[in-house]
């Protein structure tokens, strides 16, 4: 029986972050690209929480880990929501002007 330790969370966070970054670069649908960015932010949340639940630093300030990490996650969640709102609004504006959200077709600004 294997116990789940900090390393597992950190590796999962790193994998999710990489998947999100790959999604931003490779996916062609604007909404999926937005989702990939959100995935990256959630990977960061997982990393923050893993580090605050299992602190590397000896004599952590409190029993349940370091509070600062938990607080950080709340801020990231709130900001991600605001980011999604603005992002979706921009995607709608793009869709209205060209009836497509395929990233490959966003080329009116090329030289």
């Amino acid at each position, binding site marked *: 029986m294997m116990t789940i330790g900090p390393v597992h969370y950190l590796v999962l966070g790193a994998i999710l972050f990489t998947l999100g970054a790959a999604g931003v670069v490779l996916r062609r649908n*604007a909404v999926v690209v937005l989702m990939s960015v959100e995935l990256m932010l959630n990977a960061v949340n997982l990393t923050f929480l893993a580090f605050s639940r299992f602190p590397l630093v000896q004599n952590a300030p409190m029993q349940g880990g370091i509070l600062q990490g938990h607080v950080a996650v709340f801020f990231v969640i709130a900001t991600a929501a605001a980011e999604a709102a603005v992002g979706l609004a921009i995607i709608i504006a793009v869709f209205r002007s060209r009836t497509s959200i395929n990233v490959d077709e966003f080329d009116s600004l090329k030289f």
Partner: protein
Amino acid sequence: MTFNANDLLGVLPAIILSIGALLLLMSEVFLSTTRAAAQAPASPGERVAQTATAPEISSTQPDRRYQAWLAAGVAALGLWAALSQLGDPAISLFNGAAMSDGFGRVVAATVCGALLISCFVAFGYLEWLRATRGEFYALTLFSAAGMCLLAQATDLIVIFVSLEVMSLALYALCAYLRRGKRPAEAAFKYFILGSFASAIFLYGAALGFGATGSTRLADIAAGVRLAATGGGPGGSAGLLFASVALLTAGFAFKVAAVPFHMWVPDVYDGAPAPVTGFMAAGVKAAAFAVLVRILVSGFGDPSSSIGPHGWQQIIVWLAALTMFFGNLLAVPQRSVKRMLAYSSIAHAGYLLVAVAAMGNAPSRPDATQGLLFYLASYGATVIGAFGVVALIERKFALAGTGDDLSSWAGLSERHPALAAAMSLFMLSLAGVPPTAGFMAKLTVFRSAIEAGLAPLAIFGVLTSVAGLYYYLRVVVYVYMVPEGRADSVPGGRVLSASIALASCALIVLWMGIMPGSFSAMIQSASGSFGR
């Protein structure tokens, strides 16, 4: 955890700007009620007809001109607040989450000044396009508030939140003329790459938090010192390495350093010109301020391998690449707006030279001073240049095409003052002597030589000589190429734009001819940086 009124006083510019933005948004509520009252006397049948056609009729829009003046007033107030605190000693705010020091105050003053002039530029532009809507000035004020906070933040979470306050408002501003193809597309590209960069920054913050158990830059500095002596928790040195690399990469996106610059030309080209000017001046100032804070206050410990000697090498290479490719790619551009975008990349390279010079502790005060001087002079110049572009571009903004060098031909015959101003800004960007750009480059390169980075300084000088070509080409078109098309330059004089351009030109000349008075102001402030 307690804080008192002094903490709030320390972030006064940001508070003033936020309150101003909220006031602007609130005033919208009262606007619509006064309009309804004005329509009330109409007979019922007419009222139905009016409401049915209301969306199409632009003349029923309420008069929103007061918003520009209110926004400019708030910006002036913020500028005053930042300047009045300039000489005060540095204090730590909110239990070390932010810092009110001379460095932050000068950046805040630069941002507020940029905002003030941008309000005048935007006023003429938006009125001409009949595109003044309630949110424009509120968004600019919010983003300026984020920039001011960013310059003062000393906690990675505060940095992230202020970064997003600044960026989210700017994404929306880029898409402001959203009916066109180009602004919406520019906003999308900015949004995706900007939030990608934020996520990278945040991952770096998480790793730094893991290694040191805190998001405060002061605690991270302590962790870096501990890791240098091998006393930190196992694996913390590696985590800190990854952390500083990711944090730098995140901000390299924001300041448009070269491997991360792909978004800049498209965004600068597609966004409305007044927004582009504000973005170029404000985002650069705020992002460089926070990059310096992270690298110097967070990772500046000289004894550790992650410290200056680690990141200095990265910054040196970033600076060299950015100066080289920024100038090289600007050469073939036909659109002045795109050319200015690539020139903004090149200027990020010169600013990175100052950051690299900060790696050596003895040259740090001079480099800080050079950076601040450069940020202020670049801000004044670029807002002026984009102010002229805004006047030229108004006509194209509706048609949905970009500007071209040929539309600048013969500008000097129709608008001699405009032509002279544009030439002054181009000379300042190129770094020709009687202008601010020359003094700025001089101080930055001098500090680089002091820091033992002479090859980098020489390379910088060479690239800026190459840059002369494309800046002077604009001047040639303005003065020497005869006017091709009869309608190449829209006529009409705009008072607000004239005020903005005149003040930019005066600042550029003042900083170029009498840099002493300005750098004395900065010097009194920058000595207090870095605790």
